[in-house]
């Protein structure tokens, strides 16, 4: 359906009110959209530039990722946006630092609870200078000082920026040893693979590429177009072990035996087999995906094929861009969603608990409804806080849209929002969500988090050669929710920590603290759990990344609570 038709349908449905819910009725006010696009109004006046000038340089089609993270430690989510620029085929021509931006969240909460979202551009004093052509970003505290650091990926190496204080950063790439020299990466993930308390770094490399060897792939009628990654050949990923204090060593060769070069894109880390050790899933563009299962001895074993996660249920290696792991069926294990090309449909895999997966794309309804779209950034999130994980995908085609050649980059599509019906099936509620989701752009990265701290998950979307979008959730906070920040004794967010939420008389909910997943983006590491109409303060049990577990009773509902390792009941 074209953009205009979507908009009309969305408005018509919005005026008619939201459809009835499954397990929880969420009151839908007539003419009140579920999401409101507020980027410009909130001060996020950013337009991504991919630099496309007709030379069809391969990196142009990929960015941008986006980041939601607390840069200044004041308890709300700030925004980092990588930027591109025109590229040159001259290999010696250096790229000037691109105009990446850091926005500080100056959220104001009035006494009556109303919130005013305002962002201030603090880029110039931030120290976040590059790389010259930013593709994606990962966030994590690499030196356990309680401040979130940033890893910005690019097509000629990546950069690690250490957060010094209050939103200022220094480039420690060289000193860190984690620069991914010669690497072309979009996504990366911080993950404590070896349980030593330091965040290691997985970098999903894409292709072996230089602007000087750019190839143009004409279509059958001769129209020039971008080439698929297979033309350039995949590039091997890297796994860096954190030696402490932000120093890393490349231990790919020993940790990832049998690693082959594939064009990696999205990365998601989770404990897929429930053994308490974090594993890594990597989406590879057009080739079998990786599932690196932690062997608990410093190595990981690639198990995608036998696990049923490398390919679709019919054995096809599809495009695979964005990914996320989450317990969508509330059975206690991590399932996986992967976004794909037009004609392929997003793939949904359900986990049997032992890291054996089954493709349920077709019966879930997600596969068929996503067929017309090319999906990128995506995540499991409970947009209506009914206790069931929903999913949103930012879309953007890779085939120039007919009739839109007046656009600078005519590859736009609308987003998709699927609501979990709590029975293994999903409903496409995009039209009901309001005009914000009908905005047609070349969607790429998407970061999910509670940007206004009101108890529901908002979405920051990066658009290739387009404006950043901030989709503020207007409905989730009407239901009850539980907000958790899981930190270690150093104050670091404990990425990978799993939390079980025990609600009186209801099934246990399992969620995970994570900043990775999606596409080239960094998510809010806090855990927001929808409780529906249950106002009773639940008990919470956390399994920390080091394997230890603690419990807390009666954690306050409808509020953010920080749980620090060591402060709970063992």
């Amino acid at each position, binding site marked *: 359906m074209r953009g205009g038709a979507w908009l009309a349908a969305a408005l018509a449905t919005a005026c008619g009110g939201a459809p009835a819910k499954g397990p929880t009725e969420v009151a839908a006010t007539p003419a009140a959209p579920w999401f409101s696009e507020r980027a410009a109004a909130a001060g996020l006046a950013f337009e991504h530039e991919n630099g496309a000038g007709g030379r069809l340089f391969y990196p142009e089609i990929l960015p941008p990722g986006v980041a939601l993270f607390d840069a200044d430690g004041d308890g709300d989510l700030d925004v980092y946006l990588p930027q591109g620029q025109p590229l040159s085929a001259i290999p010696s021509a250096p790229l000037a630092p691109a105009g990446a931006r850091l926005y500080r969240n100056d959220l104001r909460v009035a006494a009556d609870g109303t919130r005013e979202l305002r962002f201030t551009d603090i880029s110039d004093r931030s120290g976040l200078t590059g790389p010259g052509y930013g593709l994606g970003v990962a966030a994590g505290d690499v030196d356990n000082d309680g401040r979130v650091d940033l890893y910005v990926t690019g097509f000629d190496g990546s950069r690690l920026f250490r957060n010094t204080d209050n939103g200022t950063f220094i480039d420690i790439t060289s000193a860190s040893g984690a620069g991914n020299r010669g690497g072309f990466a979009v996504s990366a993930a911080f993950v404590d693979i070896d349980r030593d308390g330091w965040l290691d770094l997985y970098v999903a490399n894409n292709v*072996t590429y230089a602007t000087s*060897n750019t*190839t143009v792939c*004409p*279509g*059958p*009628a*001769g*129209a*020039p177009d971008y080439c698929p990654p297979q033309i350039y*050949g*995949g*590039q*091997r990923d890297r796994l860096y072990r954190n030696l402490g204090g932000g120093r890393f060593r490349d231990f790919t060769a020993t940790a990832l*035996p*049998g*690693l*082959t*070069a594939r064009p990696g894109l999205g990365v998601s880390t989770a404990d897929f087999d429930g053994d308490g050790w974090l594993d890594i899933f990597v989406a590879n563009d057009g080739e079998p995906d990786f599932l690196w299962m932690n062997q608990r001895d410093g190595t990981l074993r690639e198990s995608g*094929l*036998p696990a*049923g996660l490398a*390919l679709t*249920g*019919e*054995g*096809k*290696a599809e495009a695979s861009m964005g990914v996320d792991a989450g317990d969508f069926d509330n059975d206690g294990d991590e399932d996986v969603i992967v976004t794909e090309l*037009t*004609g*392929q*449909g997003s793939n949904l895999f359900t986990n049997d608990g032992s890291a054996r997966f089954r493709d349920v794309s*077709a*019966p879930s*309804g997600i*596969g*068929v409804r*996503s*067929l*017309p*779209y090319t999906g990128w950034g995506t995540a499991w999130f409970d947009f209506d806080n009914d206790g069931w994980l929903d999913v949103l995908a930012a879309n953007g085609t890779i*085939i120039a*849209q*007919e*009739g839109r*050649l007046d656009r600078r980059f005519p590859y736009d599509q609308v987003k998709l929002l699927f609501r979990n019906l709590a029975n293994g099936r999903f409903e496409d509620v995009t039209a009901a969500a309001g005009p914000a989701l009908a905005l047609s752009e070349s969607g790429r990265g998407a970061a999910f988090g509670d940007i206004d701290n009101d108890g529901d998950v908002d979405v920051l979307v990066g658009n290739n050669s387009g404006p950043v979008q901030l989709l503020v959730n207007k409905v989730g906070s009407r239901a009850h929710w539980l907000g958790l920040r899981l930190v270690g004794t150093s104050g670091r967010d404990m990425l990978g920590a799993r939390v079980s939420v025990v609600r009186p008389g209801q099934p246990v909910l399992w969620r995970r603290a994570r900043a990775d997943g999606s596409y080239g983006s960094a998510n809010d590491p806090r855990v927001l759990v929808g409780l529906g109409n249950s106002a009773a303060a639940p008990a919470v049990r956390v399994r920390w990344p080091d394997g230890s577990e603690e419990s807390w009773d009666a954690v306050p509902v409808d509020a953010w609570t920080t749980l620090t390792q060591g402060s709970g009941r063992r």
Partner: protein
Amino acid sequence: MTRRSAASQVLLALLIGAAVGCTPSTSGETSAVPELPDLTKQAPSVQTQVREAHVRLAALVARHAPAGERSQAFGDLGVLLMAAQFPDAPQVFLDRAEALGAGDYRWPYYLGHFYRKRGEPERAREAFTRASQRSPGDVASLVWLGDTALQLGQAEQAKAHFAAALALQASSLSAQFGLGRAALALNDHRGAVDHFEAVLARDATAAAVHYPLSQAYAALGDAARAALHLRQRANHEILPADPLMVELDTLLDSPQSYETRGIRALEAKDWTAAVGWFRRGLDLAPEHAALHQRLGAALNMLGDRGAARQAFLEAVRLSPDQFLALYSLGVLDQEDRRHEEAVGRFIAALAIRPTYVEARLRLASSLRRTARAADALAEYRRVLADDAGREEARVGEVMTLAQLGRHREARAVLEEAHNRAPESVALAHGLARLLVTAPEAGVRDGRRAKMLVDQLVQRGRTLDLGETMAMALAELGEFDRAAAVQRDLLTAAQRAGLPGVVSRIAGNLARYERRTPCRTPWAEEEWP
């Protein structure tokens, strides 16, 4: 304006309207011929082709040609636009073709594929249904109906469509495969196994079956078969015979279209046709480096190595980054035993495409033959670093170690590789060969080698395996038997007209007759 001039204006408008089809016509057709999309990015030859088709269509509409003619013209243009991969434009032309072409199943069939590629399975299903109704005997329509039903999560309906297709054409692999897919979707794993195994029974090369078959076996608890089929999986499709879609790929008058046709001809081993198609593409685009490279490949297959070399050189001249042409030149040099030149070509190709494994393997091969065995070893190991299971590289590595006199190390490498992949004939054979011919007594193990060879013989007899058998017998002191085997091999090699092999076999025969075992694991002509 006077009354006469006003009337003239009206008449002029009517004439113009008639010229562009602004007259009422049959049901389903509006008066105007739809406009073309923006063609400016297409090849000039395609622009001309499409515009000419549009003019022909407009003329037919203007003169109220019979519905069948107009239907054909609308359809031709719609299909042309489909071939050019326009995402939206083909629809209106195909719709009009269908409306005018009563009973003609082609237009709804093409519409079905159009919607399928756009990711609209509901509309695809509707279109394929209409096609099937118009042509009930068309197997492809039924198979695609089954495919779209699976996309829609309607496995029972899919099963019905595939069954109908199979009833029409019992030999249809795609229909049989589809039944397996439907069974899998219905969690009928035993049924899925039956259908998938039936496909393999009919075509053992239908590699697309292996993955879903492995899933079905896994669900039935048969882990061994699941693993066996998982190892054999490949990313091929099992498609119905689809002459309409094949024709689509041959419609455009573009260099890319001729390249596609030429590649198809190469795959069909029709070298002459391939040369023809590539030359037609070059007529349109003389500086199309890839077409020169493809032409060279086709000429080489025809045996015209000189012309092939010229084509490859032209490709490189036009595009120095044409790594395939550089690689192809290296292959020609290698086959001509010009290994120094071959090394240069392969290095140049790898500088552009470091991940091109075939080039690296051939580079290693030529390095070995130019007294740079250590460099060759490094290249084999570079391939293995990226893909430890790459057999050719492993065999090359081992042979190179043997060439360097590092037989103990070669044995260790082979033992580990054989343990990881016990089903590999090449690795088992290589190990057996080394165990009987290594100069160092501590590396040899004749009995074990003989056991390995006996097992391999069960799976198939080859000349080189026979040589290894003879070597093993000689190592065990059974020289008379070794000589007898060697004489049989000699006769076979002579009959097959293999002078190089004959010479080698005769040499070893002489050794066995002198009661001397062979201590050269691999002769140079056996190197990959």
